[in-house]
């Protein structure tokens, strides 16, 4: 190859040294180098620079660099836990209402029977499948049979249990922090808001789990999760299967929900 080709060869050398040229280009460069001392020296030069660069010492990290990172990571972790615990302790939620509504609809005949004998506003909740559903939640549903959740209102009766319980219930947690710092292991699904904070857990009998997961996977969702308008239908389908839906937070309804199955 003539000297006039050296310019082209020099442009190929940086990739030639990394074996990143095509077979044809590699062949051309190799043949040129056999007869061109100048390009051979250039190859040696840029290869040497590359090796020297690879041998450059790392820059010394500042003192306590990793320690500071770990401390910040721990802060993040404890904040997340604290928020989960705080949410868990709040028992009245819009989702609770939605879940209760859904369950009440499923159990309308029983609720209706109850209402025949008792004043709606002051109903002392009887012992039934839905014995722990407060009357204030069940009564409007019995009247409206609507799936539209009530507005997110703070509970006035903090002591009133809002947990919806069905047969085959498996309690998912108690009041202590250790039970809910992580998602309950026996939950078939966990309903979260967009920040991954648990809004409700769905526990389901073992033999029904496959069907429950099928329901979850068949319901429409986008990259942000399930839409608010679909959540109530999903919860209803799950409760029809015999699910226990236990709410965790008092957060307002968010636009999108994530269900971790």
């Amino acid at each position, binding site marked *: 190859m003539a000297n006039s080709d050296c310019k082209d060869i020099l442009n190929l050398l940086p990739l030639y040294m990394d074996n990143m040229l095509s077979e044809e280009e590699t062949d051309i460069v190799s043949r040129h180098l056999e007869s061109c001392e100048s390009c051979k020296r250039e190859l040696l030069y840029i290869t040497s620079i590359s090796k020297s660069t690879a041998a*450059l010492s790392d820059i010394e990290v500042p003192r306590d660099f990793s320690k500071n990172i770990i401390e910040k990571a721990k802060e993040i972790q404890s904040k997340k836990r604290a928020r989960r615990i705080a949410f868990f302790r709040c028992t009245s939620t819009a989702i609770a209402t939605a879940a209760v509504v859904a369950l009440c609809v499923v159990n309308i005949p029983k609720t209706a029977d109850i209402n025949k004998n008792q004043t709606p506003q002051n109903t002392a909740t009887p012992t039934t499948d839905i014995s722990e559903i407060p009357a204030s939640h069940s009564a409007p549903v019995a009247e409206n049979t609507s799936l539209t959740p009530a507005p997110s209102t703070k509970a006035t009766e903090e002591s009133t249990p809002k947990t919806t319980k069905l047969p085959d219930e498996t309690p998912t947690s108690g009041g202590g922090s250790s039970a809910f710092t992580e998602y309950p292991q026996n939950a078939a699904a966990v309903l979260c808001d967009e920040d991954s904070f648990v809004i409700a857990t769905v526990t389901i009998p073992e033999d029904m789990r496959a069907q429950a997961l099928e329901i979850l996977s068949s319901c429409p969702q986008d990259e942000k999760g399930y839409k608010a308008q679909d959540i109530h239908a999903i919860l209803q389908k799950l409760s029809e299967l015999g699910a226990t839906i236990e709410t965790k937070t008092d957060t307002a309804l968010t636009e999108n929900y994530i269900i971790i199955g």
Partner: protein
Amino acid sequence: LSDKNLIKKIKSGDIEAFAKLVSQYEKKAFSFAFRMLKDSRDAEDATQEAFLRVYNKINTFREDSSFSTWFYTILNNICLDILRKRSRAVETVSIHQSDSENDEYELQIEDTTQSPHEKLQKKEAQNLLNSALSSLSEEHRAVIILRDINGFEYDEIAKILNISLGTVKSRISRARQALGKILENNRELFL
């Protein structure tokens, strides 16, 4: 422990595993950030931010690429953000040190006329190289560091920088030629 095992543990909430991951990556990561940003405090902030983003987002890491590729993608993006903010803040400086590929040749190394002693040659070469690297454009600097210092393959560099393989090739080619040109006056140190 391998990255894969550490990631698995971190996903399950093991903070000690995260500490190990940090210790495995901190030197190279900080060095990358320092060489990109040319400022120790900014490099510290960028590297710390990258690690904390990794910690926060570890559950979104799907492991269809290596952890190091994912990590350096995050770190490089943070560095680019800092550089962009800087260039917006100091417009007059950016005019003289623009990203134009030819401008880097204007930034020659200072005082290279004196011959170094034999025993100092290696150190001298390292200093010259560090200076030469810092005078490269950001784009060229990034590919040289990722390829020659961190040892990434071309396709991994393409992922980290979010550019095509062809662009990686042309950038590496030009960056190496640029380095060669900058160090021309000290060629004997590299032969």
